[in-house]
């Protein structure tokens, strides 16, 4: 076996594979460049690994270490190191609000991720059917949404949903519904719904673009074969698109989960985690303890807990990843 990897289980389906594998050529190559071949992966990985360990590893370790310290503003400025063991964790975990906040965060994340991925997938599949100018129009509109600075997007959404001057209420009133002066932010759930809409709106473009990249990578002959066999759209999707797309889909879902779990700015700018803490999620809690109250040690503990929870949420994906023979998913 050469150092070059074989692809996943889809291989047998490709009956029209152009080149038969020739062991001779592979063997010859191995004998010639073996030392370099063995080192190559590490060389390719080196810059990335160094970058990550240094620029992310250090700060992350620092955060973990900080979570065991009392680090308020004074200690930070004076460079004092005061160890308090698990006190920060106890403080956070024994706060009754913590569990409420965690559940809220998980539910919010799940809803946002599910919505963005499903809609993103639908749009990606749709894009394949479009004529080019329309597709580019759609891509540009999505790109503009994606690229809008957060200060602009949060403000525009607040204006649209404004109680008195918002265009949404005005449209609803024009359509005959009694929504004059209706407040969209009266409860935490309502507030999170609006914020969720904003996040979904800005998250779908990336998902649509990535999934589209995957969709057009599906070989046309597979679709032809399905067409010949008389499959319906849904059957084609299940038999052809889904298996091809699944790894990519799992991956972008995983990424979405990470990002949407950690969303902070939008939630803060809207209602600062209100009303009455009703839209407070874990990232908001981390901010409140950290920058806001300058309890950096406690904030670090919250960060660590967030990562732990994230790991728990994605553990099935992570385990599958490690279990597959070539670690490929």
């Amino acid at each position: 076996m050469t150092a070059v990897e074989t692809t996943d289980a889809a291989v047998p389906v490709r009956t029209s594979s152009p080149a038969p594998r020739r062991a001779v050529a592979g063997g010859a190559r191995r004998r010639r460049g073996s030392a370099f071949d063995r080192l190559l992966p590490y060389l390719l990985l080196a810059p990335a690994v160094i970058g990550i360990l240094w620029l992310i590893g250090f700060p992350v370790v620092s955060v973990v270490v900080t979570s065991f310290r009392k680090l308020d503003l004074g200690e930070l400025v004076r460079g004092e190191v005061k160890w308090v063991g698990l006190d920060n964790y106890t403080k956070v975990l024994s706060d009754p609000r913590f569990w409420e906040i965690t559940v809220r965060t998980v539910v919010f994340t799940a809803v946002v991720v599910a919505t963005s991925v499903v809609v993103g997938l639908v749009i990606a599949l749709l894009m394949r059917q479009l004529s080019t100018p329309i597709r580019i129009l759609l891509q540009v509109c999505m790109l503009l949404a994606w690229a809008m600075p957060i200060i602009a997007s949060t403000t525009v959404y607040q204006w649209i949903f404004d109680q008195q001057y918002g265009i949404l209420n005005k449209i609803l009133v024009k359509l005959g519904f009694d929504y004059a002066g209706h407040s969209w932010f009266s409860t935490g759930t309502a507030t999170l719904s609006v914020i969720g809409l904003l996040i979904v709106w800005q998250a779908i473009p990336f998902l649509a673009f990535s999934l589209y990249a995957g969709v057009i990578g599906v070989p046309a002959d597979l679709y032809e074969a399905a067409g010949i066999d008389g499959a319906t759209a849904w059957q084609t999707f299940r038999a052809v698109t889904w298996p091809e797309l699944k790894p990519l889909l799992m991956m972008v879902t995983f990424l979405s989960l990470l990002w949407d779990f950690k969303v902070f700015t939008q939630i803060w700018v809207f209602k600062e985690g209100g009303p009455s803490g009703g839209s407070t999620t874990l990232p908001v809690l981390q901010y409140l303890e950290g920058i806001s109250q300058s309890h950096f040690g406690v904030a670090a503990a919250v960060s660590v807990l967030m990562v732990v929870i994230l790991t728990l949420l994605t553990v099935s994906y992570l385990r599958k990843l490690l279990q597959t023979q070539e670690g490929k998913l």
Partner: protein
Amino acid sequence: MKGWRGLAVGAAALAVTVAGCGTSPSGTTAAESSGPKTLTVWLMDGSAPTTLTDALNKEFQDSNKDVTVKYEVQKWGGIQEKLTTALTSDTPPDVIELGNTQTPKFASEGTLLDLTGDAANLNGSEWLGGLKDSLTWENKQFGLPFYASNRTVLYRTDLFEAAGITAAPTSNDEWLAAIEKLKTANASNPDFQALYLPGQSWYTLLSFIWDQGGDVAKKDGDKFVGSLDSAQAKAGVDFYKKLVDASGTKAPKDTDEAKPQQMEVFGTGNVAMMIGLPWELGGAVKANPDLEKKTSAFPIPSKTAGKAAPVFLGGSNLAIPAGSKNVDLAKSYLKLLSSKKYQDQLGAAGTVPGTSKDTASLASNPVGKALAASSANGKVTPATPKWAAVEAGQNPLKDMLTAYLTGAKSLDQATGDANTALTALLGG
């Protein structure tokens, strides 16, 4: 697995080094050397007018050869983070401006220089009382007052005339009566609001609570505890609701005066009164030049006829970071800034000077007059470092107002819950 093991060893080594080196103190305080020096001054956006700072910097540079003033105007957005990191760096600025509600936090953590000994040099006798409280920590002064501003009731003189109101209200009863008159006179205008009062204007609420004799928090030993559940505080909250109900304001009950910006609503021309800062009036007129000569101000009325309600003194202090390398220069800069000459300019610009009791320059226009009249009765929020967290985080006062105004909670419940939250924040 080899990969994991290597990672673990590296991580342990990292932890040791990070714990030590990553938090080294902000530089050694070297002796001030001679030669050309730069004095870094950070003032906040909108504080001092450019005419003042230009003249000040020029005069300072003229009288101090070899010194250049590096003057930077800072924006308020993200300033907490910026100050935190700047003060821990090796080259912090030499003069900074801090909001008065932020000052106790920075003072108590030893990040500012103790200026008690220099107070006399900096016009100590003329310091504005309310601001002085905010920069005192453990009986030492960690800065000097810069300027203050407070809220007054900004109103439309033409609408008052049309409604038959001859004099500005000087008591709560007169105020409510004026609201009724305005409503009657403008009943035909569906967009009219006698008073625009959003639900979470907690600075305004402070005036009402103080006017009733209460406070948001009181000192209990060496900590502060909330006192929102006192009868006086409840009376203040109740009066807020009276105003909201009486005026029928369409303002949202779950935001403060910034969302939407109250001055823009006032600028639509359909609002007779708003409780705000002087610059908000300027902004309204800018948005709608028709309002130019039709506005004025009166102090927030008290429940007692003839008096003005105490007001929250929003303002700034000036301080020298503890790690500054140019302490003497910074002090002489501050001495210049606190002199009457420049304080008068602050007054002329429409703010209450921090180190001068002479408010004559301020009283040249009606808004300034109202400002000066109320500032004499100015107070600040509890001078505890924990207060900064209330403003930078989730403010229980705001939640309390919204809950009570929307009817979600009763008065007792709303104040009780807010009090518990406030005590937790101030104690923690």
